[in-house]
C-alpha cells in the first residue's frame, strides 16, 4: 500500500491521508459556509471561525480514539468536527434549532457531545485545561488508557487555569496533552504584546513537562508531534505541551473589522499558508493519492454543507418551555 515517504509524516496509509484531507476540508467548508451564512443575519450570537487552523485539529485528533476526550475553546468547530461530532447537528445548533447538537441551548460557544468525547467548546478562555486533568484522572483511576487533550489559544495560555493545569497534570502524572494554538492574536492583541514575545514551549519546563513547537499549517508536522505526545500520555509516561504556530483567516469573531491587522495580511496568508494546499501538493507529488480523489472530497464536503444548512434552516425551533429543562438531573 503506497505511503508518504518523508519520515516526519509517519507511515500514513492512503485511507489515512484521504481521511486527513477530508477532515480538514470539511472543517474549512463548514467555516467558509458559516462566514457566508452569518452575513445573511440568520445565525444568532457570537461565531468564531477556525478557518486556516484546520491542520491542528485534524493532526491531533487523528491520534484519538472515540473514548478519548478533547476540551475545546470558543473557536471550537474544528475540534468538534475532528472529534467526530455530527456536522449537520452542529450546523443546526448554530442556527439555534431543536434539532441542534445541544437542542439550541448551547450554540457555537458551547457545542459539545460527550458521547463523542467532545467536552465542549468553551466561552471561558482557559476553561478547558482543568477539565482534561479530570478526564486524565478518570483514566488513571479506572486504569483505562484513555487520553485527554485540551486546546488553548496563545491568549488563553496566559490564563492561570491553563498554567495550573500543566502543574497538576505533571504532579498527578496524567495522560493529557495540552495544545496551544498560537494564531497570532488574542482578539485584537498580538502575542508580541500579551506574552512579551516568549517561547511558549518553554512554559512546559517550569512544570517538568516536555514542550515542543511545530508549524500549525503543516498537517504532517502537527501529526507527528501530536502522535508522540499522545503515545506518551497513553503509555502512562505523562503529559506534554504542544505549541502550534498558525494564523486565522477571519476576524476574531464574525463582524470583526480587523483594524488591528495589516492591510494585506490575510490575503497574503491565504496565498502562502494554506494547510489544505500544502497537504494536497505533498501527497499528490508523492503519488500517494490522485488529484481526483481530493476533488471528490471537496465536492462531497460542499454538498454536505448545502444539506447541513438547508436542514438547519428547515429545523424546528425549540419549544419556549424547553428553557426550563435540563438544569438538573433531578431537583
Amino acid at each position: 500500500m503506497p505511503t508518504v515517504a518523508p519520515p516526519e509524516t509517519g507511515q500514513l496509509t492512503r485511507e489515512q491521508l484521504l481521511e486527513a484531507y477530508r477532515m480538514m476540508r470539511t472543517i474549512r467548508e463548514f467555516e467558509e459556509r458559516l462566514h457566508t451564512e452569518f452575513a445573511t443575519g440568520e445565525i444568532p450570537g457570537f461565531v468564531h471561525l477556525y478557518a486556516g487552523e484546520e491542520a491542528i485539529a485534524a493532526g491531533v485528533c487523528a491520534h484519538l480514539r472515540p473514548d478519548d476526550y478533547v476540551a475545546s475553546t470558543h473557536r471550537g468547530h474544528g475540534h468538534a468536527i475532528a472529534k467526530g461530532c455530527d456536522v449537520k447537528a452542529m450546523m443546526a445548533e448554530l442556527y439555534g434549532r431543536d434539532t441542534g447538537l445541544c437542542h439550541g441551548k448551547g450554540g457555537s460557544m458551547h457545542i459539545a457531545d460527550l458521547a463523542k468525547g467532545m467536552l465542549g467548546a468553551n466561552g471561558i478562555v482557559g476553561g478547558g485545561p482543568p477539565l482534561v486533568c479530570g478526564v486524565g484522572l478518570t483514566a488513571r483511576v479506572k486504569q483505562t488508557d484513555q487520553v485527554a487533550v485540551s486546546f488553548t489559544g496563545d491568549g488563553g495560555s496566559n490564563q492561570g487555569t491553563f498554567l495550573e493545569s500543566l502543574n497538576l497534570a505533571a504532579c498527578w502524572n496524567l495522560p493529557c496533552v495540552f495544545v496551544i494554538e498560537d494564531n497570532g492574536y488574542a482578539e485584537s492583541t498580538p502575542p508580541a504584546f500579551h506574552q512579551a514575545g516568549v517561547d511558549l514551549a518553554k512554559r512546559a519546563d517550569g512544570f517538568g513537562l516536555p514542550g515542543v513547537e511545530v508549524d500549525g499549517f503543516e498537517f504532517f508536522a502537527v501529526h507527528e508531534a501530536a502522535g508522540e505526545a499522545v503515545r506518551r500520555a497513553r503509555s502512562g509516561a505523562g503529559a506534554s505541551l504542544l505549541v502550534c504556530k498558525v494564523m486565522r483567516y477571519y476576524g476574531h469573531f464574525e463582524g470583526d473589522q480587523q483594524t488591528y491587522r495589516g492591510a494585506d495580511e490575510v490575503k497574503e496568508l491565504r496565498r502562502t499558508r494554506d494547510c489544505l494546499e500544502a497537504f494536497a501538493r505533498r501527497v499528490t507529488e508523492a503519488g500517494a493519492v490522485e488529484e481526483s480523489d481530493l476533488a471528490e472530497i471537496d465536492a462531497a464536503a460542499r454538498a454536505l454543507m448545502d444539506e447541513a444548512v438547508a436542514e438547519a434552516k428547515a429545523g424546528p425551533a425549540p419549544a419556549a418551555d424547553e428553557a426550563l429543562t435540563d438544569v438538573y438531573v433531578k431537583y
Partner: protein
Amino acid sequence: MAREITYQTAINEALAQEMERDPTVVVFGEDVAGGMEAPGEDDAWGGVLGVTKGLYHQFPGRVLDTPISESAYVGAAAGAAASGLRPVAELMFVDFMGVCLDQIFNQAAKFRYMFGGKAKTPMVIRTMWGAGIRAASQHSQALYPVFTHIPGLKVAVPATPYDAKGLLIAAIRDDDPVIFFEHKVLYDTKGDVPEEPYALPFGEANIVREGGDVTVVALGRMVLFAQEAAEALEGEGIDCEIVDPRTTSPLDEDTILESVENTGRLVVVDEASPRCGMACDIAARVAQEAFADLKAPPRMVTAPHTPVPFSPVLEDAYVPTVESIAAAVRETAGAGAPSVA
C-alpha cells in the same frame, strides 16, 4: 448643555473627561486599547465593542491592553488603587468573574476593614452584563447580586445614558471599590446627556415615573421594560410608580419605602436569577420595614432558576418581558385590600 448620545458614548465620554481631569486615572483590560503595538494600531479597537475607542491615543501610556489574566490585572487594579492611582479595569463580561473574584472580594473589598481603616482602594471595574444578544450561558448573566452580597464593594447598574455617565464619573471619584455594570443591550440606546462632567450620588434612587397604585422597582434593562408595561397599564387605569435604585450597594431603601407607603403595593423586576437576588433583597426589606403599608403581597418578577439559553426562542422566554411585568402588576393592583381612591 444636553444632547442625545448613546449609553456607550456616555461611558466613553465619562472616561475621557475623568482621565482629562485626573492624571491618576488609568484604564486597562483586554483589548481596551485593542491592538496596541499591532499593525493597525492607529485604528485600534477600543474594547471588544468599541466602548473605550479613542482613549488609547488621547491618553498615551494610560490605556493598556492586558493579557488574558484577569486575576493578575484585576488584582493589579487593587494594588494600584492602594498605592496612588485610580484604575478603571475592564472585566469584559461579568460572567468572567470566576477567574478573578478573589482579588475583588477578598482583596480590594476587604483592605480597608482588615487594615483597621488605614487603606483606601479607589478602583472601578467596568463590566458587561445581561441577556439579549444570544451570547448564551457564559456571556449573558446578571450576577450583580453576588457583588451586592459582598461588604466593602459598591455596585452601580445604570439604565440610561444620563445615569451611565453620571454614575461612572462618581465611581471613578469614589474612594471605595466600585463594580460598574453596563448592560450590553443598552449600549445603543440614546438619551439626553449634558456635555460637561457631572457625578450622580450613589444610593439615590431615580423615580422614573410617578404613580399612585403600584410601586415597580426595576434595574438596568428592566427599567425600560417596566416603563413600557406602565404605559400599557395606564390604559387599564393602573398607575405605576417606577423606582430605579441605580446602585444596589448602597441601596436607597428610603425612596422605595416612601413609594410603598404611598402605593401599598410592590413589584420588583430583576433580570438576575431568582435565588438570593435583588428581587428577594428588596421584597424582603420592604416586607420587614413597611409591612403595615402593604395592601398586597410583594411580587418578584425575575429570570427563572436556569442558565441563560442560546436559541432566540429560549432566551426570549428566559428574560422577563413587558407582558410578564404587566401581568404581575395587574395581579398586585387587584390583590388584597382595595386601594384607597
